[in-house]
């Protein structure tokens, strides 16, 4: 009976976890969903506590309390900017837990009174400990790099790949040994040590900016370790959660390297020798942040106030109709959209007016520079569509600039600026634009019409 209760709580918890992750598809429902997942965790833990095997609750209670005391500040007080390192640290905790469980199982089997251990279980234990200890040290290294306790530059030396390969083969050899002969404790602990070393060596040649990919990948390893634990203990919730983590970590690391315009293997191995710290198409050295249509769409979908700044690029791309569609989609979701028309946007007086009128944008959405400039600080997203000179802050600040003195649209004062352009080419005045390098600016590269088509569907599906 008790066993059935335990199993039932596990089934419930699994379902809640899956539903929780699924809720992340919709930002609106995500929070609720994750709260249910947390509830699922509670259910599973409570279920476990009624387990037959547990006879002594003292260590358990103290462990839970201590863990909570450590976890709470990690969750509540860490600034969101420090998130990646926090995840890395917490990852190493999780992996440590899995590793220790594995070690204790192994230890019990030979010292705690148990006799032998069947092959399949030994294999699972071996995998668990191998992946676990690799993740423990790897995650710690990632943490160090992200927190800048360690130099964030890639550390490389000749023959690095070779050394790693040899170590990896060594660990696998020991794994095979211990599976064949479970009593070979030296092999078990040796494998653990080599894996820990490998964790360190694998991460040091990767630059700080690529760390998030590494963290995601380690997350996947940690999940696989948990799944292995599940196989070893015959515990299906561990298998399910491990599989979920493994799949998600893997997908995430691929998605992230894609977002950085890097191939996955390039992140993991290419950085040997020091790749660029950030993926950037840079002008005159200053870095530029590019953004994907998905992310830009999400930003727009959840923005309250959006100002669209059309420029000559919108005309060249003949994107006026798509601009209106995008505005309609944002408004449908409750956002407010205004158009800021600069007096000399485009190449003829009234250029933007003709095009937007053609696209049926009502006149009362169009705002003069003077009318709208005061609103940028309260604006969530300024969407710059193929405009350049008319939003160049140099006109305000740089007396040496040929456009100094021209009044401009204060797009740079908005909370986020998204710029749609094909590349980093200059506008009519032929000068660089510091707005594109600003911290609040993200560039969505590509033909304005094509980018807008993507944005429309992203906003629609957000």
């Amino acid at each position, binding site marked *: 009976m008790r066993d059935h209760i335990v199993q039932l709580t596990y089934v419930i918890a699994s379902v809640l*976890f899956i539903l929780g*992750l*699924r809720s*992340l*598809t919709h*930002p609106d429902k995500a*929070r609720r969903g*994750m709260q249910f*997942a*947390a509830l699922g*965790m509670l259910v*599973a*833990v409570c279920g476990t506590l009624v*387990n037959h*095997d*547990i*006879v*002594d609750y003292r*260590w358990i209670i103290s*462990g839970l309390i201590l*863990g*909570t005391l450590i*976890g*709470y500040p*990690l969750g*509540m007080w860490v600034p969101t900017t420090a*998130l990646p390192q926090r995840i890395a640290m917490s990852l190493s*905790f*999780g992996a440590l*837990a*899995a590793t*220790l*469980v594995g070690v*204790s199982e192994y*230890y019990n089997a030979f*010292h*705690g*009174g148990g006799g032998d251990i069947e092959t399949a279980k030994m294999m699972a234990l071996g995998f668990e400990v191998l992946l676990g200890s690799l993740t423990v040290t790897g995650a710690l290294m990632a943490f160090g790099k992200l927190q800048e306790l360690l130099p964030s530059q890639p550390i490389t030396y000749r023959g690095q790949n070779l050394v790693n390969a040899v170590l990896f083969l060594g660990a696998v050899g020991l794994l095979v040994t211990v599976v064949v002969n479970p009593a070979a404790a030296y092999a078990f602990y040796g494998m653990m040590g080599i894996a820990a070393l490998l964790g360190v060596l694998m991460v040091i040649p990767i630059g700080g900016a690529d760390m998030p990919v590494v*963290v995601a990948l380690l*997350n996947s390893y940690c999940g696989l370790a*948990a799944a292995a*634990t599940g*196989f070893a*203990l015959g*515990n299906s*919730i*561990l*298998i399910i*959660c*491990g599989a979920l*983590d493994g*799949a*998600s*970590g893997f997908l995430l690391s691929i998605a*992230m390297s894609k*977002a950085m315009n890097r191939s996955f293997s390039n992140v993991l191995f290419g950085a040997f020798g020091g790749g660029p710290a950030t993926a950037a198409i840079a002008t005159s050295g200053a870095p530029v942040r590019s953004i994907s249509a*998905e*992310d830009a769409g*999400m930003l727009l979908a959840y923005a309250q106030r959006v100002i669209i700044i059309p420029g000559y690029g919108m005309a060249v791309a003949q994107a006026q109709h798509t601009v209106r569609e995008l505005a309609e989609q944002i408004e449908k979701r*409750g956002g407010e959209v205004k158009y800021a028309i600069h007096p000399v946007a485009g190449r003829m007086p009234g250029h933007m007016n003709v095009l937007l009128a053609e696209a049926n944008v009502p006149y009362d959405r169009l705002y003069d520079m003077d009318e709208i400039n005061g609103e940028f600080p309260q604006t969530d997203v300024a969407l710059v569509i193929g405009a350049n000179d008319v939003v160049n802050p140099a006109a305000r600040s740089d007396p040496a600039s040929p456009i100094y003195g021209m009044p401009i649209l204060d797009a740079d004062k908005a909370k986020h600026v998204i710029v749609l352009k094909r590349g980093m080419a200059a506008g009519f005045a032929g000068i660089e634009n510091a707005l594109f390098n600003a911290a609040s600016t993200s560039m969505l590269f590509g033909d304005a019409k094509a980018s807008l088509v993507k944005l429309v569907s992203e906003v629609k599906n957000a």
Partner: protein
Amino acid sequence: MMILELYIFVLAAFVGFMVITKVPPLLHTPLMSATNAISGISLVGSLVAAGGKHGQVATILGFVAVVCATANIVGGFLITDRMLKMFKRDVPASHAASKQ
């Protein structure tokens, strides 16, 4: 009969892939911290190790594992929640504002 467990693993991985491919990139960071928190499920194994009658070594290892896993779970879910809070829009309020 580890074969049944293999089924479970395959099916769960399927579910994981299908669910996660649909998560928009903006939520990738919360997703990472959420899966990280969920990986704290190894607490379930740790509890048995810490509370079982397998001798001192196992108990100590189990205790450390419980601490780590708990910290992982508590911190993970809390921070995920904090992040997701930022995506909750006060839609009624905005509507009220725009109607003024």
